[in-house]
């Protein structure tokens, strides 16, 4: 009887241990996901802000002269080879599009974006069929000339989070099998 009882106790303890282990792993994974999301979002936001503001500052003269080819070359140079940049859109004061990077057309979601004449603003945007973006908007000459929108992709952040979570899960699975 004694060995049977001790076996039961051992298996109970093991289940409790595994349960605690699982809860800890879950909490850690959630914490990891939240912190990765927060840190990478901040990083992408900062990158988007830098791109939007640099275009807004360097494009004033060009926009005043209304030269779409030069503005397009300017936004292409910021978009090419910059990881995480999903789109760049330059609109005039009336909301008419001066330059953009969308294929095959500018999505409808871009028409109603938030614009602030004084500050660079951030907004979460979901574009049907394309994905989620952190939209950073900078005014050009206090909005008198127009606005620059830079869409930083959420997909790389989400991919990074999933990768980390998968690593955590693998680590947990290895550890629990070792405990067993």
């Amino acid at each position, binding site marked *: 009887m004694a060995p049977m009882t001790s076996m039961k106790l051992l298996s109970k303890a093991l289940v409790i241990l595994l349960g605690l282990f699982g809860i800890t792993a879950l909490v850690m994974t959630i914490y990891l996901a939240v912190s990765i999301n927060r840190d990478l979002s901040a990083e992408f936001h900062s990158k988007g802000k830098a791109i939007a503001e640099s275009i807004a500052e360097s494009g004033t003269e060009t926009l005043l002269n209304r*030269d*779409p*080819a030069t503005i*397009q070359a300017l936004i292409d140079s910021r978009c*090419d080879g910059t990881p995480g940049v999903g789109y760049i859109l330059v609109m005039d004061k009336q909301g008419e599009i001066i330059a*953009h*990077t969308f294929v*095959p057309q500018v999505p409808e979601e871009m028409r109603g974006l938030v614009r602030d004449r004084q500050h660079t603003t951030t907004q979460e945007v979901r574009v049907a069929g394309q994905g989620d973006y952190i939209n950073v908007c900078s005014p050009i000459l206090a909005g008198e000339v127009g606005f620059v929108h830079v869409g930083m992709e959420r997909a790389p952040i989400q991919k990074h989070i999933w990768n980390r979570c998968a690593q955590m899960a693998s680590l947990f699975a290895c550890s629990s099998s070792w405990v067993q």
Partner: protein
Amino acid sequence: MSILSLRGSPRLLLVALAFVASQIARGEEIVIGMSAAFSGPSKGLGIELYRGTMAYLEHVNSQGGVHGRKVVLKAYDDGYNPLPAIDNTIRLIDQDHALLLFNYVGTPTVTRCLPLLKRPQGVPVLLFCPFTGAQPQRQPPYDKIVLNLRASYYQETNGLVEHFLAIGRQRIAVFYQIDAYGRNGWEGVRVALARHGLTMAGEATYRRGTPFKESLKPQVDILARAQPDVIISIGAYEACAAFIRDARDAGLNVPIANVSFVGSESLLELLQEAGKMKGVDYTRDLVNSQVVPSYHDSTLPGVRQYLELTKRYQPLPPHDLVKEDYQPRPASFVGLEGFLNAKLLVTVLQRMGPPFERQRVAKAAESITDLDLGIHVPVSFRADKHQGSDAIYYTIVRDGQFESFQEWEKWRQ
């Protein structure tokens, strides 16, 4: 011993003189720099432009060159991408010491290279005859350092819009490459329509480098919903041919126009091949604007000379430039443009005379007045006028080739 040396000395002297002369000649070559697409989906443009230019330069060099100096065209491949074009420009200016830059292909490449030409610490390097009709090199701050022979995209698109409006086709949509080139053409159409109080019926974009095999059905669907009377394409030949194929397959049978950059022969070849496979004529209702006359017009002395010299020299780009399969064309609009560009270049060099220095180029070019390159279009430059020609020609496919046409009325509605 002395007899031998006396007999041998004239021969040795000749060999030595020939060696010295070759060294001097090598040192006194006039180096012209070119960066263009010799690879990728737009390689046909760079290769044919180079071939047209070399047909004339080889002829000039065979006649003793310019003021006794051989004109050397140093070319690099940029694949129609801005970053390699920037690298090539730096190399041409600093390492190859090119007297001037020439025959650059494409708006996205040229617009990114323009700031390199100003050289605040030194003498600006002039860019001659870029194969683009875009605005950035036609307006400050770069208008003084670029010498354009061809008409602008604004002029090409304006001409197309005016002709279509005149025959009652008011719903004009635009299919364009989403970069500086496409956006420049888009703006040209917008401005031309705005003059008549009209706006675009619709617009759709594609990414630079899109190959012919790719489906452009999403773009076709977007434009079909706009119910256009005509579509103006601002793109390169592979994507434009794919768009025409998919539009016709979807039953969108309105006239489709392309501008000169498209590369008409390459576009036609793709459409003819696809049409043959499917038993469909994809070449109907196409109109391409050109900035040079048809190379079938043998009444023009410049065209006759182009055809004759291309046949005589059959120039090819260096092997290290063309790594992909390419079948050179006997003649093309792009080739003729390269040929005319070379004639202008040689005229400027002849007027300039030695010493061939960068600071002397602009003055020599700006002295040209009413120059006929053999196409009956007077070409003039001044300090405040850096575009030589305003001529636009329109072509349609007839008997399997692009030929001049005037019969816009057939599309009246």
